[in-house]
């Protein structure tokens, strides 16, 4: 793996986390290609012999660029109460592995994520953690996220909602 490409892709992921944690959602949207597929399937508990515990029929998110834009727009209106007291998010990204794909301008990028959210003075901290499988594409001199699949580790989420992006 070319170390320069790897470093540039890592930089993209860290920059993305920074933009989300500072609610710069407009700039965050610019990191995605127009044909992005952003999905988070439901994780369930299954017996080992029953196969994958990622259920392909059910999702927490199944987004296009347009629907992500709509979610961002909603968070910005005055009566989006979930954002009113500016909950504090921290996106941790680690264990980044970059692999080439069949397309010369696109790389498969696996990473781990841990997102914590603090709301007001509530001692309860919301948490979401798991693994991301991204497709990162080089478009007009910039690296952009062309696909994201979020595999969450909890079958019962411990966050009061998924108002945040992951």
């Amino acid at each position: 793996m070319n170390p320069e490409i790897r470093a540039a892709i890592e930089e993209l992921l860290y920059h993305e986390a920074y933009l989300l944690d500072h609610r710069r959602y407009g700039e965050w949207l610019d990191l995605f290609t127009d044909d992005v597929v952003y999905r988070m399937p439901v994780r369930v508990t299954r017996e080992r012999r029953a196969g994958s515990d990622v259920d392909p029929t059910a999702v927490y998110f199944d987004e296009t660029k347009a629907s992500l834009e709509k979610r961002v727009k909603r968070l910005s209106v005055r009566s989006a109460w979930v954002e009113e007291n500016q909950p504090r998010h921290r996106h941790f990204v680690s264990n980044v592995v970059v692999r080439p794909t069949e397309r010369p301008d696109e790389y498969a990028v696996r990473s781990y994520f841990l997102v914590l959210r603090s709301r007001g003075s509530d001692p309860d901290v919301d948490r979401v953690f798991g693994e991301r499988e991204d497709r990162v594409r080089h478009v007009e001199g910039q690296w952009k996220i062309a696909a994201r699949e979020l595999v969450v580790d909890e079958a019962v989420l411990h966050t009061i909602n998924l108002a945040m992006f992951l």
Partner: protein
Amino acid sequence: MGALQAEHFRKIREAMDRGLLPQWVLTDPDVWALEQERVFPRTWQFLGHESEVPVPGAFVTRWMVHDPVLVVRGEDGEIRAFLNACPHRGTLLCTADAGTQAAFTCPYHGWTFDAQGALIGVALAHQVWGTELCRAEWGLKPIPRLERYQGLLFGTLDPAAPPLVEYLGAMTWYLDLLVGRSGGMEVWGPPHRWVVAGNWKLLYENFTGDPYHVQSTHRSTVELGITPQRVVRGWQVVLPHGHGINVTQYLEVPERPYQRTPEALWPRFREHLNPVQEELLRRAAVLVGGIFPTLSFVSPLHGTGEDLYNFLNLRVWRPLAPDRVEVWSWCLVDRAAPEAYKRAAYKAYVDSFGPSGTLEQDDTEMWARVMQASRGWMVRDKTLNYNNVINYLMGFGRVEPDPTFPGPGTAYPGFVDAVSRSTHRFWLHLLTDGAEEGSGEA
């Protein structure tokens, strides 16, 4: 009754008789202990939909508050519900959420049960056991009662409970309309599950008796045009045993009637509904309500793209503690609907009422805020020195039932707190074994 005395219940009833509720009953640990003894085990609780266990051996595991439940279809095609624990030493038996298998083996000592609950395998049976073990006596313990209505499975721990249809009362008329309208529904995917801050009574009430919150809590969806704004009129219908439903209808029959469902379903509606139900559905905008104590439902219109879609969202508010609830959320679609419509309807559900949904996000924020304001002494003081009673006065002693409403139950026009007041009275009736009945006024 522990720390709770007759005096406390009398004060609760007196507040209710004035359209109020002492706020301390939401989170009080003694109330919570008594609810686990007298409210949940004596009522019918939703366990799932028959489409979740379609074939012999198909199972789901569920919870009735803290009782683990295994719902499984036997080789004979019958659906049964058992305590999900090995009767030998009380170990949680099946740890998967769902699956299909012919038998369930407890890993502790190696006892095996078939999908009909019979003990079919005992480890080292001939070496260590003799006549003292009668296998017929050591099958899985059935949940005392399991009954279904329109494919919805309910269980109760009370062997003497009234039959499910009697408990549901006139709610069956509305379930025919919601679930039976096209000949049957199916669950799309496994349910969403997440843990929120809130008291179960408040969450039940939020769906079942509180359309008033929509204009403020969910204003953002109106501001963005996600929620349709059309001239509608609504009723709140009080049903027995703490159940209730809110019906909103368009004044004129909309261009695309029957909640914008595909035209292919309309003849089915005419076939499965009586003319009164069909006319109600033809004009319906949103139907939202609940079956006491822990099931709520909403049948709305939603969409984030060009069009709006209809689905049935079922919610179980599984209480974990007085201030914590595990939410279970299912999306149901008409089995006869075209596949493309089902997919679009599921997406509309995720975007609105799933945990990432634009409507859901703000609800959970409000419930958490009520809990944050319920921990102090001004709320917890049971002698009500600080008059910490919350307000269910809307329409109280003023709004009369509308005799022209076509469905069963007591229907009040517009915005009222009648269902919540009725729910509170049934809750107190259960909590006190009928000692405090409250007045009959809704």
